[in-house]
């Protein structure tokens, strides 16, 4: 058996974890005041749990639900995914594995004339259009409920509540991120539990700080409550999508939540340009991946 698929899956998993865990870490730091080893422990636990418990629900996307690729075509898709994710991680920008994977499997199909399920593709894209709305509304509801709850508490209790919530929400976010996004890699040849999980854990430990530094404070100045509500709404939206086997982006759902809250709670300090770049980035990632995969396929 060729080692290339194993290396590609493992490397993609590593880069994905390095890139995407930064989003969760940003929110965690906003609430707890610092990054800690405990954060890494919880994020990794969430990644492992999510992948084992629900990761299988997304394996179909790359293994027949949208298009049936042979081993060679699947390698082209994986090379595309790895290249695009690596470039954006190197640029310290969050990139969505779900957007990139869909583009990467459509590229070879388009270039080599392989038939694909256009309805399924449209279904996924429609879901991506709908996700910011779901996440934004949910964030506002959660934020209002949270404010009602804490308004009766002492400030000391609010602080303890935020700290404990941040830990629980870190677990929830890394769980859903892993179930939805890492699960996608299961559809590729060479994938397996350890081949995906070990590099992902290494990615969190070694590189997750790189993306966090640029993303964190550029988007919006939200309160601790706001960050928590956005993270829960984004994670819950992603979890819902996982139940319908729809790949989605945690970055985009969380940022949608932040955007909704920034508009809802005034006065607000929002970098709308950065926010729109992040929420509206899915067509860009999709197109870039299609183009890269298409070009490689023609070569």
């Amino acid at each position, binding site marked *: 058996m060729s080692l290339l698929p194993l290396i590609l899956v493992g490397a993609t998993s590593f880069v994905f974890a390095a890139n995407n865990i930064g989003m969760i870490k940003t929110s965690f730091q*906003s*609430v*707890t*005041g*610092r990054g*800690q*080893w*405990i954060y890494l422990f919880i994020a990794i636990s969430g990644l492992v749990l999510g992948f084992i418990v629900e990761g299988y629900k997304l394996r179909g996307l790359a293994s027949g639900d949208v298009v049936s690729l042979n081993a060679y075509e699947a390698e082209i898709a994986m090379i595309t995914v790895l290249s695009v994710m690596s470039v954006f991680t190197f640029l310290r920008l969050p990139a969505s594995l779900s957007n990139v994977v869909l583009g990467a499997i459509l590229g070879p199909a388009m270039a080599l004339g392989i038939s694909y399920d256009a309805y399924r593709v449209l279904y996924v894209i429609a879901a991506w259009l709908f996700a910011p709305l779901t996440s934004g509304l949910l964030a506002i509801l959660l934020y209002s409920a949270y*404010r009602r709850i*804490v*308004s*009766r*508490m*002492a*400030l*000391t*209790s*609010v*602080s*303890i509540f*935020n*700290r*404990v919530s941040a*830990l629980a929400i870190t677990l929830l976010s890394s769980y859903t991120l892993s179930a939805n996004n890492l699960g996608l890699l299961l559809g590729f040849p060479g994938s397996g539990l350890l081949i995906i999980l070990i590099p992902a854990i290494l990615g969190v430990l070694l590189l997750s700080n790189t993306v966090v530094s640029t993303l964190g404070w550029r988007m919006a100045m939200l*309160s*601790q*409550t706001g960050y928590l509500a956005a993270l829960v709404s984004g994670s819950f939206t992603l979890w819902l999508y996982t139940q319908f086997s729809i790949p989605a982006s945690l970055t985009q759902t969380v940022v949608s939540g932040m955007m909704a809250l920034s508009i809802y*709670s005034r006065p607000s300090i929002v970098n709308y340009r950065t926010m729109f770049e992040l929420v509206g980035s899915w067509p860009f990632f999709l197109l870039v991946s299609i183009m890269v995969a298409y070009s490689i396929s023609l070569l």
Partner: protein
Amino acid sequence: MKIFRLGISGNGEGVILNQLLSHTELAMKASVRLKGIIELIASSRWDEARKEYDIIDSLESEADEIHRDTVEKLSTGVFFAGLGGDLMNLAEKIDGIADSAKDSARTLIFRRLEPSEVIPLKDELCTFLSSCEDAVSSLSEAVKGIGKSRETVISHVKETEMHEESADETKNRILERLYQIQMPVLSTIQLRDFIFQADNVADFAEDAGDILYILVAKGYY
């Protein structure tokens, strides 16, 4: 127990709140003694007045130690995340109360004032110092409110502001009066400096109250 050291759980917030409360109590104990010094000087009990100053001095030193400890805890712990900077400012203002009490007491002690110079102003000075004490006392209740409810904090901060305004009004009356009384210029300057420094007690209490407003705004929204 390691879980507590990592800051997942545990009541680190409670520990910091208790430190702030002790700090405020010491600042209050120091400011309450100012009235005593005025009364002792007015009744020619100079040595006792000096002893009062020594007590204020030691209370201020104790407050300094608590201040250092609180700042250290806030800067190294994970408690009150996102509010640490504001709590450090709060501790700084509380420390300012104790410092001002000590500075004003020292102004009275450095040069011997004659009872005849203090007696004409004694009643109003006592009223003024009572307002300063009340401002600190209300602040202390507001700090306690951090462990109770948002409403408690806000209502006591409002009281602090009210007492500070009252202290300001009395201060202006005393200054007007002071400049009309015939006494050695040095005594006038000494009493004027005392009034300004004692007024800082109420001013620092009010500033601390403003920080409590910020804490409430940041913590609950």
